[in-house]
């Protein structure tokens, strides 16, 4: 479009705007607070260079998607984050979901496991199996995947501090099934930077944590080549209250920090970058979310190619999993959450996600019941099979609004990159509490807006049902779980070869203190049925622990 054409559109717009009610014109914003205009035209994206900004799907800069055929070739993986009670309880839930058309597994661990503690650790009291499954050793992992062929399914595991250990349990469980590590497909979250920023389940201080991560990347490149070694996660940053731009910026900056760590550890960027994947939130503001996913792909491709000099196109492309936003669900009128989730899931699909978790309506009350999780899974199947949105790649590409918003989010992300660089990089920024403070500020702003009625939450501050009664069933975790786990662990410690456990843990301590890759000795300890707490304890002996200063 020529500049004369753009000028004409601007003039015509002025004429048109004269007739628009001023009140409908001001103070409209995205959920993150980006002011938005009432209408977008070619004038708002003047000078738009199609080939440079969008190009074609499966090609640099991947704005339109990471695959040439996108969903015509293969649908996204329908992967429900799931885990509760004992390994046997969760194994039954996995089989239920797979029977109903789920196409990948995603393990939710309980808090003790997330912190590298055994079910019988004193700090685990009251938490065993409560908001995830309790996995204390290889023996539990064997039960978790009993009857599920690990050579065929891909498994994502939300595990960070003790990621290396849980991954070793998985590799060893696969060995027991006769599946070599080369065939395994899946993801460990293993994103420790966002733990310090938002999710807060860390084990060691940042530096040794980064060393374990580069060891994992090196081990995977040799022995588990199809595994995604880090799922760089914005999800928890967003859940903690960030804006879309903060989620985008902090997540990508974490990603670049891992890339720099890998390069610094002497790895060739093209050996590990293709195995990095991402995990984003899909929040309430439909177009803002779609723009965020598109901007993420474009920024990652540019920086990987030009700043980090990756040569393989696989190193440039940003593949991501999406989860709908748990923090947007309401305890009031919980059935409405089905609809919220459906909109958020649709945004993820229009944004080109590779895999998706849809939340269940009852999750502000407890972990989901079978019925609730089935509706959540059906929501994805409805989008895939009935709406027709999978037919055309990036169908919102070229929308004046979506392109302008994509550019805007990209610009805001780069502003944050500059601020973080000025603080000395992401690790330093985290130590200063910078991203944590930015997120807490945004969370408080949002809460204020809801309480002052500037933002509507249906069923909470508008359209409230007085004296509402909860009409959906709630899942209860039996207190027997903790007792059962204690008994299983006591039995395990009695039956295993304890001298072998001791030897492998000593080898692990030595590797931690020296320069050898820690994955081999962790795997040996896992095979010897050393427990999660014992293995993490051995690592803490060398690496130390971490506490963050409290602030609000």
């Amino acid at each position, binding site marked *: 479009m020529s500049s004369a054409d753009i000028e004409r559109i601007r003039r015509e717009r002025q004429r048109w705007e004269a007739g628009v009610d001023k009140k409908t014109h001001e103070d409209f914003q995205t959920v993150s607070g980006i002011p938005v205009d009432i209408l977008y035209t070619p004038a708002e994206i003047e000078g738009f260079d199609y080939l440079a900004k969008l190009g074609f799907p499966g090609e640099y800069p991947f704005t339109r998607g990471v695959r040439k055929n996108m969903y015509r070739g293969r649908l996204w993986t329908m992967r429900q984050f799931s885990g509760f009670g004992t390994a046997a309880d969760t194994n039954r839930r996995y089989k239920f979901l797979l029977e109903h058309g789920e196409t990948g597994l995603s393990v939710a661990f309980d808090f003790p496991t997330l912190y590298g503690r055994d079910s019988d650790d004193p700090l685990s009291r009251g938490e065993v199996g409560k908001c995830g499954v309790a996995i204390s050793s290889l023996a539990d992992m064997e039960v978790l995947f009993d009857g599920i062929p690990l050579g065929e399914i891909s498994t994502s595991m939300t595990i960070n501090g003790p990621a290396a250990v849980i991954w070793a349990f998985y590799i060893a469980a696969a060995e027991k099934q006769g599946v070599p590590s080369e065939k395994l497909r899946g993801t460990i979250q293993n994103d420790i930077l966002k733990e310090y920023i938002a999710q807060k389940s860390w084990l060691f201080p940042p530096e040794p944590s980064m060393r374990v991560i580069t060891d994992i990347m090196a081990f995977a490149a040799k022995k588990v080549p199809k595994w995604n070694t880090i799922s760089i996660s914005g999800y928890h940053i967003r859940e903690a209250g960030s804006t879309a731009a903060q989620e985008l910026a902090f997540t990508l900056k974490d990603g670049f920090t891992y890339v720099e760590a890998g390069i610094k550890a002497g790895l060739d960027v093209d050996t590990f970058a293709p195995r990095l994947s991402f995990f984003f939130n899909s929040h309430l503001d439909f177009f803002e979310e779609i723009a965020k996913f598109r901007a993420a792909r474009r920024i990652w491709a540019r920086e990987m190619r030009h700043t980090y000099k990756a040569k393989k196109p696989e190193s440039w492309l940003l593949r991501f999993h999406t989860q709908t936003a748990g923090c947007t669900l309401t305890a009031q009128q919980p059935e409405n959450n089905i609809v919220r989730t459906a909109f958020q899931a649709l945004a993820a699909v229009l944004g080109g996600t590779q895999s998706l978790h849809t939340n269940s309506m009852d999750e502000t009350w407890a972990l989901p019941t079978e019925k609730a999780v089935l509706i959540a899974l059906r929501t994805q199947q409805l989008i895939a099979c009935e709406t027709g949105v999978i037919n055309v790649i990036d169908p919102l590409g070229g929308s004046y609004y979506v392109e302008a918003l994509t550019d805007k989010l990209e610009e805001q992300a780069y502003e944050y990159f500059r601020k973080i660089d000025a603080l000395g990089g992401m690790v330093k920024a985290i130590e200063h509490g910078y991203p944590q403070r930015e997120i807490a500020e945004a969370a408080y702003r949002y809460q204020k807006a809801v*309480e002052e009625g500037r933002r509507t939450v249906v069923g909470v501050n508008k359209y409230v049902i007085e004296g509402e009664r909860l009409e959906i069933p709630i899942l209860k975790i039996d207190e027997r779980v903790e007792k059962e786990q204690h008994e299983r662990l006591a039995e395990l410690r009695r039956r295993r070869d304890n001298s072998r456990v001791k030897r492998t843990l000593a080898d692990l301590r030595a590797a931690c203190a020296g320069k050898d890759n820690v994955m081999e000795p962790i795997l040996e300890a896992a095979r010897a049925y050393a427990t999660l707490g014992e293995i993490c304890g051995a690592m803490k002996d060398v690496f130390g622990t971490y506490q963050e200063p409290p602030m609000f």
Partner: protein
Amino acid sequence: MTKKKLRILIAKPGLDGHDRGAKVVARALRDAGFEVIYTGLHQTPEMIAEAAIQEDVDVVGLSILSGAHMTIFPEVMRLLKEKGGGDILVIGGGIIPKEDMEALENMGCGRLFGPGTPTQEIVDYLREKFPDRA
């Protein structure tokens, strides 16, 4: 005579790292004029009771989203009593099913606030409970 300010300890017990709610509530209570102390993450019931006594607070607010509430609330209340802080009001919030809320309130716990509660409701509740405090 000026009224003495109400002192509140906001605590995150157990391993649960979800601190968005605790921080928002701490800040809203501070903005309402109360004196607020935040423990930070990963506190044991012993640490919380100890801090409550040392800081001489009137109220302890526990934030639990991990499902461990039926273990942690009674334990904090027991320890407070044991250490001579039996008059400290224990309130809380998080992912807590209604029947558990009722059970805890029957055990002597103060009000428990679920998701979607306006922070003003917590402020109003505390003012009503402590009319002679600022």
